[in-house]
């Protein structure tokens, strides 16, 4: 990749001997040049990389930055990135973002997600029961980490789980950085078409689910049929490639820190803190959040001009020693952990975070309660980490128990 010595190429590749730590280059930049340029697209774009926690939070909370990837200077993963429909509201600024997000905010209220906890616990129990019936080693991703969030988001949305090979495939394409812009756009469209049919089905045969309630908002004139389909597609996608990776990586992390497993088996407050620390430590959205300045703004003493792109690698900011003491240590009792940026910060912060928390808080303790002899069946260096995806994770995780 063409890049001058002063402008390093943006990379996702983790150190082989420390696959859960950020690339060492970024750790060094955070110390020496916390706001600096990196090169994308073989040097054809040189956006800013903001690596300190304080600066990252300032960018994400500032109205001087846009999240719209169609700005000419937008630091998109792909040079040929195609515009997404407005139902993928993370790619839109207010007022479109707010209008779309508000069609779903009630679905992710704490009280409403709490009503899903018994179902999450039941699904966790069923999957672990089925897993233990297999003769090991078995793939923990295929048999637990992926199906759990997939089943949960299907139940929430009212999507038949039998179709999971189709939408898991589309979700995989959407986070695959080697996929072309056209392939990603095709995956968006495939999901949107599938869900458009489901919106129409739910209108005829309503259920107690999100797609039915979005269809009702169409009838009230709040959104269009296509919006309802795209919003559902967005949730289906977002519900897959995030929690599944967190469950698998958290399990690896806890197995590598056996002294800390008692925390994940503790009371609700202990479990909640432990999950926040795992979110901080792993920060799986390692492709970085992307913004474009719409006004001149000073971040960390550097002037970023209107039109310039900024990449915020939250996995690097969440390991900033100026904010988190001994940031590379896993400390499941960390005091200021709730200020992590794993779900982002600002108006675009993850809408599904209450659901992700509930799933992790239920699934992780149950894994270690039910499988006290759980072990990874291959050496760490043989685990296939997903390097070229916007969301970090493992392709498979052979385990015994």
């Amino acid at each position, binding site marked *: 990749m063409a890049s001058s010595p002063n402008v390093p190429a943006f990379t996702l590749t983790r150190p082989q001997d420390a696959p859960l730590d950020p690339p060492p280059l970024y750790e060094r930049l955070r110390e020496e040049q916390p706001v600096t340029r990196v090169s994308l697209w073989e040097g054809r774009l040189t956006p800013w990389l903001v690596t300190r926690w304080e600066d990252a939070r300032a960018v994400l909370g500032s109205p001087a930055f846009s999240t719209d990837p169609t700005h000419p200077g937008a630091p998109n993963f792909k040079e040929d990135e195609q515009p997404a429909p407005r139902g993928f509201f993370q790619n839109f600024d207010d007022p479109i973002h707010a209008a779309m997000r508000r069609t779903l905010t009630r679905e992710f209220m704490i009280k409403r997600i709490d009503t899903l906890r018994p179902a999450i616990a039941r699904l966790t129990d069923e999957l672990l029961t089925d897993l233990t019936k297999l003769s090991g080693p078995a793939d923990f991703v295929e048999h637990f980490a992926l199906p759990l969030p997939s089943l949960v988001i299907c139940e929430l949305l009212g999507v038949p789980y039998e179709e999971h090979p189709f939408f898991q495939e589309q979700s995989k394409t959407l986070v695959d950085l080697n996929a072309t812009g056209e392939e990603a756009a095709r995956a968006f469209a495939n999901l949107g078409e599938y869900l458009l049919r489901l919106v129409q089905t739910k209108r005829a045969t309503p259920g107690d689910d999100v797609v039915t309630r979005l269809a009702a908002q169409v009838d009230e004139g709040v959104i269009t049929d296509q919006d309802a389909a795209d919003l559902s597609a967005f949730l289906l996608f977002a519900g897959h490639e995030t929690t599944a990776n967190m469950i698998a990586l958290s399990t690896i992390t806890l197995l590598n820190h056996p002294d800390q497993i008692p925390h994940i088996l503790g009371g609700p407050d202990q479990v909640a803190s432990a999950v926040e620390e795992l979110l901080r430590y792993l920060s799986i959205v390692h492709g970085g959040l992307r913004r474009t300045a719409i006004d001149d703004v000073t971040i960390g003493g550097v002037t970023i001009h209107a039109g310039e792109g900024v990449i915020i690698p939250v996995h690097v900011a969440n390991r900033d020693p100026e904010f988190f003491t001994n940031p590379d240590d896993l400390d499941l009792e960390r005091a200021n952990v*709730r200020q992590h940026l794993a779900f982002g910060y600002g108006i675009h912060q993850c809408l599904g975070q209450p659901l992700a928390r509930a799933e992790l808080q239920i699934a992780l303790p149950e894994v270690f309660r039910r499988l006290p002899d759980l072990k990874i069946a291959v050496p760490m260096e043989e685990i296939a980490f997903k390097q070229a995806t916007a969301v970090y994770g493992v392709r498979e995780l052979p385990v015994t128990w």
Partner: protein
Amino acid sequence: MHVEVDVPKCVASGQCVLLAPDVFDQREEDGMVVLLDDNPPAELHDAVRESATVCPAAAIRLEES
């Protein structure tokens, strides 16, 4: 301590409800913040401060007396 919330800024992340459920709630129709107690007792002050700090939309304002 006096608490104010700016409802139009709220993005319904729900973090305040998790941290200080006796002070913050969410509106049934859209998940926006509802202030239950604008003058919370001293034992809740830490949780309310943390809620204001982590609120992604900076929609919680505190006046400490």
